[in-house]
């Protein structure tokens, strides 16, 4: 039996004005377990707290009930008071007789009656309280960043800057991501390479940062502060630490017909290659799908020309296991496939391209050395049609495209149109739009410049059909403002393809038990207040893996994610919330119902040996809750069919006792 003390607060006249506090403390005195009951003007004041401490000592109290304001106000205060007097802080319950009683009821007898009932419910609960101790876990002071685009780079740099070691895992042979493929960046039009490549060099030179390029995460175990991650380093058949990046092999390799993915297949590279001049790490990689040596055992040119002796045809995939305290997901995006939108003739004509292809076409390091030339015949295009929202903002019933707005297309299309008109004033540029969406600092001004200064023809309407005929692309479109169907003979059509999360995100989310929305974007812990954290503790989100974003937004989110990681890694130990779920191993039948409803992946199963009657033993599958991961929502407690799962601090028996006390 508990020895409970009840402390009724007047809160000046806030409570005492409508509630007869004396009557309340008198009534509660007779409740089971209550050995002491009093009231005082301001319980939260130093004097009030002293009354509590004194009573705990004098009456050897094992639990206390404070009838006062909302627990959201002073629960923490009274828990500290109890702890100071040597009582477990979780033996304190608050009866909210101010916000939920005295302030909403006017009539003294009614208020008093309700306050007594609320007090009784709190007493009934404390009778079943047990002392709780928050668990502590150590923190591995190293972060993992998955994805080496601008988001991953910025996050890694910021974390390293705070003094913590960071590893970047990038599946491509170089970091840099999509931004490395871009030409100019809106709205300032500085060149992407000029602002990105110095950051890539910073990453390479930072002794806190390790880059695992051409690698991927294959397994994640553990929880916040203590992740065990397996990284698979693909064989690149070149010794990374020996290769000097001189590039001789990439010039001498006889296999010249490999589509160059960095230029989106618009030109070719060799079977041994460095994706682009500023690649980090600047190390060659052999493409095993095209290398004659690896396929037939005959060739070996690269090995012969390499003076450093870096080529190793026998290299194998390597698995690295590492511990991390925090994981940042920065897996980025890709433009969607244009397969389902062939009314725009993407598959039928080389001169129908996506906007990312257009970036490469205008990039000085691209396949045309920055000259805007048609992919089909290398001629200069005079009429260019840009189509917005290709695959964005689609209804789900249409079963093609994405429901969301891809967000970046309006701005990059304005940029493309403006740059084209600037460099080639002899071109006619049309932009077909549904809505022009340019919120952002200096964004709408930028779009207006395209229209007003550069005379880009913005047409409100959509393209319905592109018909390649001869060397022209016949574009049939609607102009909704003049209510006309337009027919344009274009030389180049550029499609603003919707963007979607990288395909690697879904399996990664499963490994991390991080949740995703139906579009495979990672879900944030709270859409407004915790935008860079995943609901899974210790997993953070950076960049477009969380939703479409432009570069400025990505960089700020990357910094925010880094600061959250730093906040976590700065701690030596993590103190948990002790009000977490726990499973009674004798009652659990291992049905997995709880695991399925847990949003945090806090529940795992283990086979445990049990002593059974007649000196036998049995192996039974039982649920185990990881208290460091559990957030204490209680979803599992209701899902559990056998009643094995319960929540500390809000046990079923405690809530039932409250119900009973109220309904008496």
């Amino acid at each position: 039996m508990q020895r409970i003390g009840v402390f009724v607060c007047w809160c000046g006249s806030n409570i005492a004005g409508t509630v007869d506090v004396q009557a309340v403390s008198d009534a509660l005195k007779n409740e089971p377990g209550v050995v002491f009951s009093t009231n005082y003007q301001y319980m939260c004041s130093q004097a009030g707290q002293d009354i509590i401490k004194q009573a705990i000592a004098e009456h050897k109290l094992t639990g206390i009930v404070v009838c006062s304001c909302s627990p959201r106000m002073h629960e923490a205060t009274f828990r500290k008071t109890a702890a100071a007097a040597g009582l477990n802080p979780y033996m304190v319950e608050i009866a909210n007789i101010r916000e939920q009683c005295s302030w909403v009821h006017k009539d003294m007898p009614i208020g008093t009656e309700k306050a007594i009932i609320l007090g009784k419910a709190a007493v009934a609960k404390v009778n079943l309280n047990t002392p709780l101790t928050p668990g502590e876990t150590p923190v591995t002071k190293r972060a993992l960043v998955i994805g080496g685009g601008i988001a991953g780079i910025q996050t890694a740099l910021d974390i390293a800057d705070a003094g913590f070691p960071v590893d970047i895992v990038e599946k491509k042979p170089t970091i840099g991501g999509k931004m490395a493929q871009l030409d100019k960046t809106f709205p300032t039009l500085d060149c992407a390479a000029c602002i990105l490549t110095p950051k890539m060099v910073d990453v390479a030179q930072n002794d806190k940062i390790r880059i695992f390029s051409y690698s991927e995460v294959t397994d994640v175990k553990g929880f916040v502060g203590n992740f065990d991650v397996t990284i698979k380093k693909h064989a690149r058949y070149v010794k990374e630490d020996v290769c000097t990046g001189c590039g001789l092999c990439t010039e001498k390799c006889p296999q010249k017909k490999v589509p160059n993915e960095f230029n989106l297949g618009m030109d070719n590279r060799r079977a041994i290659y460095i994706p682009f001049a500023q690649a980090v790490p600047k190390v060659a990689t052999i493409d095993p799908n095209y290398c004659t040596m690896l396929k037939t055992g005959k060739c070996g040119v690269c090995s012969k020309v390499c003076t450093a002796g870096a080529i190793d045809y026998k290299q194998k995939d390597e698995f690295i296991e590492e511990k991390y305290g925090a994981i940042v997901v920065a897996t980025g995006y890709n433009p969607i496939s244009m397969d389902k939108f062939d009314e725009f003739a993407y598959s039928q004509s080389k001169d129908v391209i996506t906007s990312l292809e257009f970036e490469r076409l205008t990039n000085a390091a691209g396949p045309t050395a920055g000259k805007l030339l048609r992919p089909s015949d290398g001629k200069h295009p005079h009429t260019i049609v840009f189509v917005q929202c290709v695959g964005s903002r689609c209804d789900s019933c249409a079963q093609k495209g994405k429901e969301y707005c891809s967000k970046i297309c309006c701005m990059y299309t304005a940029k493309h149109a403006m740059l084209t008109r600037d460099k080639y004033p002899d071109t006619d540029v049309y932009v077909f739009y549904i809505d022009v969406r340019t919120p952002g600092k200096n964004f709408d001004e930028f779009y207006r410049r395209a229209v007003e200064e550069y005379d880009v023809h913005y047409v409100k309407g959509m393209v319905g059909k592109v018909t390649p005929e001869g060397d022209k692309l016949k574009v049939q479109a609607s102009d909704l403002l003049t209510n006309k169907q337009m027919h344009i003979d274009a030389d180049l059509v550029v499609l603003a393809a919707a963007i979607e999360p990288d395909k690697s995100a879904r399996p990664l989310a499963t490994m991390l038990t991080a949740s995703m929305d139906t579009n495979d974007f990672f879900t944030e812990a709270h859409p407004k207040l915790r935008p860079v954290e995943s609901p899974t503790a210790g997993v953070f989100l950076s960049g477009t893996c969380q939703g479409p974003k432009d570069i400025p937004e990505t960089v700020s989110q990357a910094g925010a994610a880094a600061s959250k990681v730093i906040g976590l890694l700065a701690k030596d130990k993590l103190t948990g919330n002790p009000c977490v779920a726990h499973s009674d191993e004798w009652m659990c039948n291992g049905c997995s119902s709880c695991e399925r409803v847990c949003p945090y992946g806090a529940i795992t199963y283990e086979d445990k040996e049990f002593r059974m009657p007649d000196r036998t033993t049995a192996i039974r599958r039982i649920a185990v809750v990881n208290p460091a991961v559990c957030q204490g929502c209680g979803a599992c407690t209701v899902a559990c069919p056998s009643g094995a799962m319960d929540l500390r601090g809000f046990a079923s028996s405690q809530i039932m006792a409250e119900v009973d006390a109220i309904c008496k």
Partner: protein
Amino acid sequence: MKVSYFPGCTLKNKAIDLDIYARKSAEVLGVTLEEIEEWQCCGGVFSTARDEIATKLASVRALKAAHEKNYPLVTVCSACHNVIKQTNHAMQNDAEFAQKVNNYMAPEDAYNGETQVYHYLELLRDVIGFDTIKGKVVNPLKGQKIAAYYGCLLLRPSSTMQMDDPENPHIMEDFISAIGAQPVIYALRNECCGGYVTMESPELAKKKSDAILENAKAAGADMIVTACPLCRYNLLKNGTDMPVLYITELLAQALGVKEDTNG
């Protein structure tokens, strides 16, 4: 094997070639087209209005007749196929519509879209197989550059028709390859020829057909094939000198059964 066959009104009259060669070729390929008894005209166009019941009964009767024999139902004419397939889809998916139709016909023996509906091209692709056809070709149409003209009705609405990718189809191109000719891909192959509006507005049909023919010609086509008598009419009427043939005619030619009928 045997399948139920719905020829449709035009194939009994203006498009006899489409019908005769369809039967002959199928026979060579081991499929007998068994004509449904007392079939009625499908109406030529499907009404998307959900309260149009009577105009769809003819299609349901044909579907039901095939169902009673447990055969799939095959049509050659694109329009008939479109109407019957859409009607069948409505019988499967619109419970209210199906109930009204069944009440109208024979509620005790309800039909709920069980019949498998094939267009002749689908029969070739999915049942017989283009590889089998390739093996049976005796007169490969070597060197002929043939442009497939799909029109609207074979492909759309794509969620119902489910024949092929509505914007980048290849079933007819695969067919053309199978009979040894060279398919020509051009963008307007799935655009409308003007359809029945040709009666009231021949100018519209001319504009549409001319554009299609020009586009096919620019892509290097010597000939156009189609499965639809109305498309063929519009293309021929407005064409310059581009031959427009039925798919079955070419198939019969490749399989070596065309001369027989002429003789």
